[in-house]
């Protein structure tokens, strides 16, 4: 797949864009953990157009892991969904950019997130709805491995497997921060419910893109992007 976004920014510009929100302080792990997958999604995978963010044919990206959205905001700004100047207002009174993204305020943001365990169930319904409407757009939802502590995710992933939602992809950023861990790996939790799974280096753009664009007929896809453990 090719993305429809264009940008005058490169991956190398992202630290500077994020610094406009956080200053010189070290970026929070929750923000940097998602950076490479987000960049790969928006630059190489998703069919989205910042000039037409409501296009019915667009792929849908749902950031369920709404904590630490600086990387998300930087990537959206880099791809032209909103002016980079907005980053300077981060969390200020009247800013559109809070500590959790709000779909009512930010172009290109599909869901307002923050409370964990909501994105995957909504993504399941969205994928079902798009299929019902014969819309071939993909639905991609990003979660974290610790977010899977929330039981609502386990309700949803069973439904997705049973309904063979092959246009649904879940990306799990795995920084091994789940309180009690996932014996056998988080991918196993998906595979037993009928999902196709890929486990990749969450910093390797080529590997991430390959996993996100592979065939998985009649099965939803879970891509576990493993990164350095949360410190």
């Amino acid at each position, binding site marked *: 797949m090719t993305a429809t976004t264009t940008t005058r920014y490169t991956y190398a510009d992202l630290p500077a864009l994020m610094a406009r929100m956080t200053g010189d302080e070290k970026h929070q792990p929750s923000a940097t953990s998602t950076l490479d997958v987000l960049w790969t999604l928006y630059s190489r995978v998703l069919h989205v157009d910042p000039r037409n963010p409501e296009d*019915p044919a667009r792929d*849908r990206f749902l950031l369920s892991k709404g904590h630490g959205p600086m990387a998300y905001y930087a990537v959206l700004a880099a791809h032209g969904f909103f002016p980079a100047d907005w980053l300077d207002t981060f969390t200020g009174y009247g800013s559109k950019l809070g500590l959790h993204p709000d*779909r*009512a305020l930010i172009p290109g943001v*599909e*869901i*307002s997130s923050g*409370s964990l*365990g*909501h994105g*995957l*169930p*909504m*993504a*399941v*319904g*969205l*994928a*079902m*709805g*798009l*299929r*019902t*409407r014969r*819309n071939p757009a993909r639905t991609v939802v990003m979660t974290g491995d610790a977010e899977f502590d929330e*039981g*609502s995710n386990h*309700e*949803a992933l*069973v*439904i997705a497997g049973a*309904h063979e939602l092959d246009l649904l992809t879940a990306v799990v950023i795995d920084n091994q921060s789940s309180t009690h861990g996932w014996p056998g790996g988080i991918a196993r939790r998906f595979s037993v419910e009928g999902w196709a799974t890929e486990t990749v280096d969450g910093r390797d753009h080529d590997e991430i893109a390959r996993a996100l664009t592979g065939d998985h007929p009649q099965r939803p896809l879970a891509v576990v992007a493993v990164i350095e453990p949360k410190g």
Partner: protein
Amino acid sequence: MRSRFAAVTSRLMDDHENIAVVLADISISHFAAAARRHPHRVVNVGIREQAMIGAAAGMALAGLRPIAHTYTPFLIERPFEQVKLDLGHQELGAILVSVGASYDETGYGYTHHAPGDVALLDTLPGWTVHIPGHPDEVESFLRIAALNNNRVYIRLSAHTNDKPHARPDGQFTLLRSGSGATVVAVGPMLERVLAATADLDVTVLYAPTVRPFDAATLRYVLAEPAVVLVEPYLRGTSASKVSEALSDLPHRLLALGTPEHTARLYGSPSDHDIEYGLDVAGLRARISSFAARSDAPSAVR
């Protein structure tokens, strides 16, 4: 009411390609035929109520008009954060239809009772709340809701009134005019209120739609500033609405309804009605006592 809900919803699905039903293992047989005709638009998620609301929200994101349905406590209370965030915070529309009311299933005990559902929804903005008292009203509310894109809660009950009285515009219906207090009977409480007040000089308003609350009609019919609320859920749920409507008037209010925690009784719903003073005799005793204490000499229209 449940059968009418399923029949009307199934017909609406035939006529409108955007309507989808999300179930959580309840009322499956009622939708079996619709599921055969519309396999992608009748979805049983199993006993997964959080995912039921989340999936309904996702369907709304895709442009569908989802109807989610199960027992009251599992529709409103268990997935309340999903109702709050996946629907409300996302600014998405959906129709939630419950069965079981406050204590229709008395044999199951408090785990299956939900007297606080409307009060909980009152903490969220933008909900239209219907408490139908007759199957015809269920159909009317559903047909209107299906054509809109708002957030609608329809609370079904095993109790029904003899006749439908709902107005399609959501305004309260004036059923009896008197010179004393005004009694607001919500949904399936109506028949009991009419019987309990048959020889009392009171006004009776029927309220099958409680949100938005029709303050204008209440204000218009008020003969004296004394109001009795008779709600089939947590007593006083609409008390603040009455107070807002009459904020410029000294007024009296009697709020009747269920307690926060239903009694540890089984038996029948009628047994519970008696326990909470919501049977005809209990209502008559409390309404007549309240109405007899009239101290407002002048009309307020």
